[in-house]
Structure formats: structure tokens, C-alpha cells
């Protein structure tokens, strides 16, 4: 298992479009991937889960993965959130 923290950078938070980007990206990996915020854990491959996490700008979430591509999965998801800012900024 492998995990990293990521801070939400885009101003509108993880609303519908970023959520679908994240789910699509996560679904490309074999590993089980979960997101955690305030003790709530959700499956990163579930749009319902990701939306219900209600992550807003400035908040930190933990991205956790286990499986053979776990490291790669974490890196690309953290990059989407922090560096690419969901291509919104």
C-alpha cells in the first residue's frame, strides 16, 4: 500500500467535471484506490463516492492505493489534483 496527501487547488473544488476526470483516471489503474477526507473513505473509481467527499479548494485529501500499479496511480492522481488543477486554472 502507498499513500500521499493532495491539496485541492482549483477554485471550485471537486465538482462534477473534476470528479469525472478523477474517476476516469483512477479507473485506468488496476490497484484499489481510495480517497480519504475527515475520516470519510471513498472509492476513487466511484463518481458517487468522489462527489460525496465534497472536497473544496484548500482542503487536503489522502490518496491511497494498493496493487501492482499503486505508485504510478498515486502519482498521476496527485498530479491531476495539485499540478494540473483539473485543467481548470
Amino acid at each position, binding site marked *: 500500500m502507498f499513500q500521499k496527501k493532495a491539496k485541492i487547488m482549483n477554485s471550485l473544488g471537486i465538482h462534477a467535471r473534476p470528479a469525472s476526470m478523477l474517476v476516469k483516471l483512477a479507473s485506468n489503474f488496476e490497484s484499489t484506490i481510495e480517497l480519504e477526507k475527515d475520516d470519510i473513505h471513498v472509492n476513487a473509481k466511484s*463518481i*458517487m463516492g468522489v*462527489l*460525496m467527499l465534497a472536497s473544496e479548494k484548500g482542503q487536503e485529501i489522502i490518496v491511497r492505493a494498493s496493487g501492482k500499479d499503486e505508485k504510478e496511480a498515486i502519482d498521476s492522481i496527485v498530479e491531476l489534483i495539485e499540478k494540473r488543477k483539473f485543467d481548470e486554472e
Partner: protein
Amino acid sequence: MKNKIIRGIPVSPAIVIGRAFLHSQKDAAFTRSKKKGNIDEEIFKLEKARKKSLRQLRSLKTELKKLPTSEPVRLIDVQILFLQDPLFLNSVEKRIRNNQESAEESIFNLLESLKSDFEEIPNSYISGRYLDVKDVGDRLLRNLNDEEIEMELEGRNNIIVANRLSPTETAQMSIDKVSGIVTERGGKTSHTAIIAEALNIPAVVGVSGLLNEVESGDEIIVDGISGIVVVNPDENTKRRFEQKEKEAKKIQQEFLKHKDLPAITLDGYSIDICANIELPMELAFIEKYGAKGVGLLRTEFLYFTSDSIPDEEVQYRFYSKIAKMCSPDYVIVRTLDLGGDKVFKAKAKEEANPFLGWRGIRFALSNEGIFKTQLRAILRASSMGNIRLLIPMVSQVEEMIEVRRILEDIMEELRKEGHSFDENIEIGAMVEVPSVCLLADHFAKVVDFFSIGTNDLTQYALAVDRGNKRVSGLYDHLDPSVLKLMKMTIEQAHHNNRWVGVCGGIAADIVAIPLLVGLEVDELSLPPSYIPQVKNVIRGLSLKEAKELLEQVENKESAIEVREFMRNELLKRFPSLKNILLEVEK
């Protein structure tokens, strides 16, 4: 009822005669299955409905990709992901297995519980996404009762009659080869209106009382040119509309051919014809209908899509994009006009008289933070093209002085930060309150231009609330008093070397065009689809005769007289407009 005529707002200028199909937003309660199968049967039913929904959404997505905007495609993406979401599907399945619910019940109950979960999310931008979930849930429910949905596809010339339609439902209409759309709710800038226009589906929206008058199977005429709906027309009416449809089609194609010619009168008086724009997806219409830039860019939608204030960068990118696209033509950005009928969710306060209350510049000056953010974004974008600034709901000279003071401060800030902007950006005031007309000479000293918003000017001049059925009959922007106020403004403005535009509904009212020419307005801004026909009228007139017409109209004492007179005069000069001007008896 025979030949029932109802009026609404025309949004997609074409006419169709067909059969009404009532599109009810069926509540889950309605579709709850009467007989429940065993667990496996229910799960099989669910899977079938899920696959069908996926197929529908995918073909919808293909169709939506043809639209000039990607926003609806994103909506569909979220819904597709829901139908593939293990968590969502497991929750439904669990309800069927453990609670012995039918497939319909399980979806209905899951939607209800998700609704309350979403409502607890404080960020309304995210919690608003419940609507997407509901949209996909409703689709599943409809597909579980599939006889209902198939009916829509039967036969030709289906006219969808609904209370309102979601953007995805509207887009679905194009796949279903729907011939026309009529909705009880919605306005000119609703998603239904914009998508219907982009897809060339004749449509009338905002038809109040619609659902009480129409039943499925009724014959119905949708006139998207005049905003008229006729339920069960008699033979005579039908013949007239069939004729109007044929002629209108011919004329509009003719107009469209000349859309890029300049709007110059026979004796050489030239007027800029610009587009009113609100949503990003409307930008494609600028080119399509031959607009010369944007005469009114409404910015409220930026604020409505979320409860949080859109930040400077989001706004800057939006304004820059449009400025670049239209350059060298100008884009007039109107600062936020909140209040009145456009209540700002985050700041909404109840007022006894919202139209006489805290709206437009009054709201902006007491929320300087929000206002300054917008002004900074607009100023910065002014370096990317030709941007002009327009201030709404001005009633006092002092307000414009205050705006100029704030702008000076911001310009100083931007210089210090090293941002470039147009140092000579033109600043204008909306003319909506009669006080501006009466004191136009004073206002001319503090503005670079005026833009007359006839919808509000008419409402304030006549003390008529357009939305109030009991008095809305008194509302007409051709009222001689309104024309007189416009004349005062334009004379004073020109006397002080200020130019004047008109951006209200009057600019798309074809019988009013000669009068606007006679008033020597410098610019007209209107919904893009009306541009070709307005240009055609301007090009067929001389300024001299327009002034003579105006003079004759000044002797009339009511809007009814003015309208009747102008209709006849216009028909004398443009017999081909006969069918566009065709009215039905009330």
C-alpha cells in the same frame, strides 16, 4: 378547445405544425411498479434498464458533441459514470436483495437518501450536482417502464410540450427527431432556448398556462417567430400558418445570405448591429448570424452557476476569450446586474419591491469586493481586444462618478502589478431609469456612451410589471412616452458627442427598426438570430424616410396606434415581410 391561442417567448425562429406529446417529468412514485418479480427478475430488469440508459446517453453524447460548447457533454459524462459506478449499482442491488424492494422502488429510495446526503454538503457547487444524479435516476426509472418512452419515437412531427426541459432532455429531442418544443417555463437565455436554437428546432418558451390547455395528441402550431402557440387550430388558421412557414423559411434563407453586409441605409447612415450574449455556447451565433461584435455581454450567469463568487482568473479568462474572438470589433461587458428578478443566491434578501430596490449598480457599490474583482478582470481582459464597460441600473450622476473613482484606483493597482490594460477603455451607463433620460446632458459629462435597455425603461416609464398578468397588457416598448424618453437621451448624448446604443427587446422588434433609425441610434444589440432580418430592413430604408416616420409616430397617443401604423408602413416597403408580421386575432 378549438383554436386556442397562447403567447410565449419565441426562441428559435421557425414554425411547425404537429402533434403534441406531453413530456411529464414523471416522479418515481408514478412509475413504481405494480407487480414485483422475485429478486433475480428485479435485478435482471434493472440491468436491462441500465444498459438501455447507457446506450441512450452514449448516442446523446455523440449528438451533443456537434454543439458549439462542451458543457452538456460533461453533464452526460457524469451520468455515464454513474451508470458504471460500482458503489451506485451495489447500493441499488443491496436494496433489492436485502429490503425486498422492486427495481423502481430501490432507485426511488436511493435517490431520496442521496438527496438528503447532497443537501448536507455546504459547497452548493457540489451539492447542486444532485440534479445530475436525479437526471440519471429518472432516466433509469423511465427505462424500467419502457413502453412509455417508446411512444415518443412513434410517428413524425412530434411537438414536445413540457413544464421545463433539462439541457440533456432538450438535446435528446434532436435524436428523437422532435419537430418542435413548447415549455411553460424558461426564458430567452434558458438552456432549452439556446440548445433548441443551435439545433434549429422551432420553440416557444415561457408559455404560461400551457399545460392546462394541451393534451397529448392535440394538433398544435408552434410559431417560434412570433412566439405563438395554437392548440387545435381550425382549417383557416392552419392554412395561414402553413403559408407563413413556407414564406418565412424562404425569406430567412434569403436574409441569411446577406448577413455579412453592413447595416447602412440607402442614403448612407450606418449602424453597428451587435449580438446580445450571455452563455458561452452562444458565442458561435456571432459568426452564424453576422453580428459585429457583442453589444451586450451579460455576466450574471458567472455568478449563478455557483454560490461562491467567481474569482478574478475565471472571469478574466472568459472575458479575454470573447475579446480575442471578436477583435477588432468591440465587446461591451455589462457588470453584474443582480437583484430585481435576478436574485443572487448567496446574497438574496427579501425586498417588498425588488425592481425598485437593491439591484445593479446599487448592489455593486455596496458590495465593493465583488464589484472590484469583476472590474479588475474586465480591465485586464481589455488588453486582449476591444472591450467597453457598461454599468447597469444607474439612476444618479453620482453613481457614475463613484464608478470612475473605483476604476482609477484599480488602474493604479494594475499598473503597479505590471498588468496591461486599455487606458482609454470606454465607460457607459445603461439607460433604464427615466431619470437618466431626463438628466442625459449631465450624465453625458461622466460617461463615454449610453446603452438604452428598453425592457426596464418601459417598465419604469409606464409603471408596469412585465411579470404581472393583470397589467402586462399595458407593457409595450412602442409606447410614445418611451420613444420620447429615448429621443431626449439620444439628442442630449449626440449634442455632447456621446454615442448611443439600444440593447433591449425593441432592437429585435422588426416594426420598431425604422423608428430606431429615425432616432439616429449608433448601435443596436439584439439576440443574434434576429440580426439578418433587422439588417435587411435597415438596408432597405433611407434615414430621411425613417425620420419622417418617426415624426408621424410622435403624433400618436398610444402604443397600439404606433404599432398598427408601423406595421402598415413596413409592409408597404417590405411586402416580403408579410408572413413574418402575420398576427393572429387575440
